[in-house]
């Protein structure tokens, strides 16, 4: 079913939203990604991913107070929805089951090297 699968970058973003637990807004998410994965996500890429997550119903939005350091604009905080958590779990399970299906990782590594 289209729209329920998570793209790789979407997964990273959604995980960050979950980690930040209520404090997730644009710059905070960007910082979290940088801290955890050393990846420099561009603002454009980040927001386009957030918009997709919102469309798929994996995150909820809540407006915060206006902030002077944002030129008086409000922060928009993202929180993960139940559907979002299920999507993360599904992805994790998929990965795990596939990992498990590899006969022996070390043997596999030897074979390929």
């Amino acid at each position, binding site marked *: 079913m289209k729209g329920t699968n998570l793209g790789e970058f979407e997964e990273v973003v959604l995980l960050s939203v979950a980690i930040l637990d209520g404090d997730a*807004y*644009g*710059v905070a998410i*960007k910082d979290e990604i940088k801290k955890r994965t050393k990846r420099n996500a*561009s*603002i*454009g*890429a*980040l*927001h*386009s991913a957030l*918009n997709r997550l919102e469309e798929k119903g994996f995150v909820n939005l809540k407006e915060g107070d206006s*902030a002077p*350091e*944002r*030129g008086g*604009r*409000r*922060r*928009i905080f993202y929180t993960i929805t139940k559907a979002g958590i299920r999507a993360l779990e599904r992805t994790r399970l998929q990965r795990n089951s596939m990992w498990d299906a590899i006969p022996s990782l070390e043997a596999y590594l030897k074979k390929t090297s």
Partner: protein
Amino acid sequence: MSKQKRSKPPVFPTWLISQLGGTRHVNNVLGDMEELYRRRLEEEGELSAKIHYWIDALSVVTHRAIPREKSTRSITVSMELLINYLKIASRNLLRQKVHSGINILGLSVGFTFSILILLFVAHETSYDRMHAKADRIYLLPMTWNFNGTSMPTSANCSVGGPFMKEAFPEVEEFVRVLRTSLSLRNANDVIKEARVYFADSAFFRIFSFPLLQGDPQKALVAPNSMVITRSMAVKYFGHKWENENILEKTIIESNNKVYQIAGVIEDVPTNSHLQFDFLVSISTLPFSRATPSWDNSQFLTYLLLSPGASHERIRQEIPNRLESRFGTQTNEVISLDLVQLPDVYLHSTVYKVPNASDVIYVKIFSFTALLILVIAMVNYVNMATARSMERALEVGVRKVMGAQRVQLFFQFLNESIVITTISLLLAIAFSWLLVPAFNWFTEKSLNLSSLLTLQNIAIIALVVIVISFLSGVYPALFVSGYMPAKVLKGKLKDSLQGIRMRKALVVSQFLISILLLICTFMISDQIDYVQSKSLGFNRDQLVSLSLDSISRTRLETIENTFARESNVSGTAASIQLPTNITHQTALSLKNETDGERRLMTAVSVNSDFMKTVGLQLIAGRDFTHRIEQTSETWEIILNESAAAFFGWTAEQALGKEMIVWQKEGKVTGVVKDFHFSSLHKPISPLVIFSGKGATQYTNFIVKASGSPSEIREAFEKLWKQAAPDSPFLLTFLDDQYESLYKKESLLKQVINLFAVLAIVISNLGLFGLASYLIMQRTKEMGIRKVLGASPTTLIKLVSGSFVQLVLVAFLLAIPLSWYLMSEWLSGFAYHISFNWMIVMIAGASVLILALATVVYHALQVTRINPATTLRAQ
């Protein structure tokens, strides 16, 4: 607060992003960007923060991070439509290469010349505005009135300026300027410097010519002080003059007079009617010349009025003050006028200010440029409407799909904007290439970059819009009005209205072309007439050498040296050249009072003048030999007109006594009328006189045979022997005579160029139109051919309608050109009559060209094998 805290993110990307969608998304993204911006500002500095801000903005755009609003029509939607229109427009342009090429070529040629003319007009109207006080500076010209003859002159008498300052408290300053020339020593050479002004010390308080060195207050005070321009500083003191103290330097005149350099200014800008290289303090002049008097008008006089002073009031008050100060008689003879400085160059033609022009040339140039533009626009309209049939299907489909007429209208308008813009860009490139040639042609030094002012760019943008609109609106209305049902059924015919419109436009194009061509022919005919007209003496063999104060004293030596030469058949000396005698002098008969004086053209000459120039006496005798050295009273020779003016026959005039230059003289001869000034004016009374006290000759005239280069070479050698301390300045009277008609020659060349352009562009248009309309009739031609029509009949058939149009244009052009040319010719006292031959030639040549254009296409159509065109049916 630190400076960095106040720094704001760049405005443009912020605006761009705010245009992308709804507020919520925009604010979310912009909030993040601003937060990051501030953080980077603290950590990495302003530059890095700004660069990253731009990168962020770019990433937002490329990732489409802001969803588009769906409900409202945002800018992006209409942008897409616009892009689609542009795409359609460019496809159409590419599909119809020949037609678009003709349109673009025509328009860009029109634009190119309009840009050049704009450049010229901008320069002409910018004269004398560089002075800070320009609106308060006034030229004080005067008019002499003697017994009904009035002579306006730009130069005032030496007393004019002082009188005005004394009489009116509003006059803050005055400056008198005397234009002259000096022979100056530079190393071992003697150079004649013709751009020398003597000026009062107020010069720099009135005009804004900033001094590079020297004190503006003192520079023109002491006698023999001289202010020079930068180029003269380089010429006389070398390129390193700036490193030295130039105020200690001197320049020496050929008669060993020493001038102290008192200042250096930048070269005078070309858009100043005051044109000089040297300024000399007026106190240098001999006492008698600058002493205030009403004797001789020789000083250009400028006044500086106090802020808020009314020049109108002053002008009205002048006669009263003149009368109370100098008496009734002076007031009757003299009238003064005020001309505001920026008006001097274009709007003071009656006073003939040196270096000034006439607004009529600006008008003629602008008008012809406009005509060319109109012709090019007409091409576009014609072809767009003619081709509209092809677009009819597109319009029908668009309409069926729900396009509004307004949208279609703008779509077609858009195409003309595209064409106009491309043509303009091409035109800018063309004019950039043509500026040097144009400068050579107009003798100006114009620069395309001077057009790059906000105002001019706005004008150009406006012109593009107006022209796109004018040329696009008719076709757009026309095409967008098609009924889709009819179009899609294929029942559309070229409408009668469209055909009429096109015919009218073609006629107007050819009307302009023929008109310009007739004007060109007439003007060159008149100029040829002027140049070949016998003046009453043979100017071909006459050469003039300029005399200065030193060579004048050695006149006899010079005469003897030249007389020995085998190709020299005579020499003479005079104050003015026989081709252009302009000096006016007050003259009275012996028993008359001062009040009965009248102004008359007069020239002082030596006794050889009549003989050498070749003037023909009809009564009396020539001057007594060496009269200029022997006689205290004048010997006078009148021309026929002068004798007639006094009511005498040639014989009666002999022996009459009159007073010229405050001295008595007797008429000894009468000369047959000859042309002594430009043919614009009828021959007027002329007094030629000779005797002691009028020997300030400025020209040594030699009658010589041989080629110009031989004469120049030989005479330079002779001159160096006879007058080694004076500059060698040789003029052929022929050239001097032609320079009297410089304006006319320029006019001729401009109209000539425009006539050619007009013909080329309208023929281009005709080419396009004919090719299209004839191709439409291919099938008809095929059928006619099958039924037995000969190629000649076919050609006659298709070209007939076009020839008709050109003929109509020709008939309309005849009365118009007759009117225009009669007006212009009446500016000459001696002119050709309106030449019908010329009209016929102009009409015939345009007709032949048009015919050739049409027949070319007609031939192609008739050559096609009817089988190919009719096979489809």
